[in-house]
């Protein structure tokens, strides 16, 4: 049974490891560079981009049923808002 150094040489794992870490760095560096440039590129491009339109926000899988939770939440938020607003008023009067 051959262990140790022989195995490492035979299977070229040093080369493999070196290449591996190199590729990882290469990919991450590219991402890093891309992200560093992105804000600048976007500042130039942005005026030419179309504005997002949200004319029909619902889609096939979001029927009116799905709205009810949101409406509930809005009602809740409204109630909370009112409560807090009320508290404010009370403080001032």
């Amino acid at each position: 049974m051959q262990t140790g150094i022989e195995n490492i040489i035979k299977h070229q794992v040093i080369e493999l490891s070196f290449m591996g870490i190199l590729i990882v760095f290469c990919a991450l560096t590219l991402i890093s560079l891309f992200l560093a440039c992105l804000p600048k590129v976007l500042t130039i491009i942005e005026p030419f981009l179309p504005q997002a339109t949200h004319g029909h926000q619902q889609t096939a899988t979001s029927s009116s049923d799905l709205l009810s939770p949101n409406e509930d939440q809005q009602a809740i938020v409204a109630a909370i808002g009112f409560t807090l607003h009320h508290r404010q008023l009370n403080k001032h009067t």
Partner: protein
Amino acid sequence: MDMFWKFIESTGFAQMEWANVLMILIGIFFISLAIAKDYEPLLLVPIGFGMVIGNIPYPPNMSLSVYDDWNGPGGLSNSSVLSLLYFGVKYGLYPPLIFLGIGAMTDFSTMLSNPKLILLGGAAQIGIFATLIGAVFLGFTPEQAAAIGIIGGADGPTAIFLASKMAPELLGAIAVSAYSYMALVPVIQPPIMYLLTTKAERRIRMKPPREVPKLERIIFPIAAFLICTLIAPGALTLLGMLFLGNLLKESTVTERLANTARNALIDIVTILLGFTVGASTQASTFLTQQSILIFGLGALSFIIATAGGILFAKFMNLFLTDKINPLIGAAGVSAVPDSARVVQAIGQKEDAHNILLMHAMAPNVAGVIGSAIAAGVLWSVLGK
């Protein structure tokens, strides 16, 4: 250094072809459309990203695409994760599960309130059959033509289901075409609607729908299922799931099941379906002359379907005293609920106080049933 070159050869950069670049750009375009225009984002985002994933080249000794499945050498242990997830598309498993969720979120009550509007959902299916004839004319086999025609049904799950059974080789093109045109409903339909209706017709107001009692809403899914599948047993899987979902919703005693069906379940299946359908559009199998023909026929199908619905509404008006606003005929194509919204928007342009949305929902959901029946008929006549 051998190893290094072997790796360089395996990278996507080395193997990239222009066709892949084109498909990746189309994928990104789909994503942009979904985000910027809010066109069917729940499907276009996963499909678009799937198109990007499916067009990354990879070395032939790896199993990565949806097509590297258990039928290849190595069997199951050499099949890719994407191919395992694509199982649900390939064997038609995802579409019925999506229909279960759609059933659990669809309110059929406006349709129940005015049953004659159901016929509009039938008239729009003319698009399916006209396209079928056109596709055979262009040289497709009848099976392929049927799968292409169903694009005009404007229901993605129905189109994918029938394509998986009748023409699996065209599934990617049919699915992408169906969802593209469903997303483009706000662009395709309005010109046809203006062309085929007069200003006076577009201003017709309809009586508000009546309140539908709970018992009727419970009986409907069972009765409609029996009627449809006794006539067209091929629609059993899709309509079975659709009406089961609706029964879970309307029975009220199974609310928690309906809730899961229309949330967690449909969302999970939608992600997996959209993303694997997108990933099935590898340039080598997708960028063919057939695909271009399919896109052309799909557009035709949508146009005929829209016209069919509108004209049938005008035809019905010849016999009715309470006139139908013919715009709502356009909602018969389904593409729920986008085409009903288009009807509402155009109706309001003529008369700001005319609320057509709820009336349009009737042919809209009837169109889903109509397309599923059409798919069932085509499958039972043409299927092996």
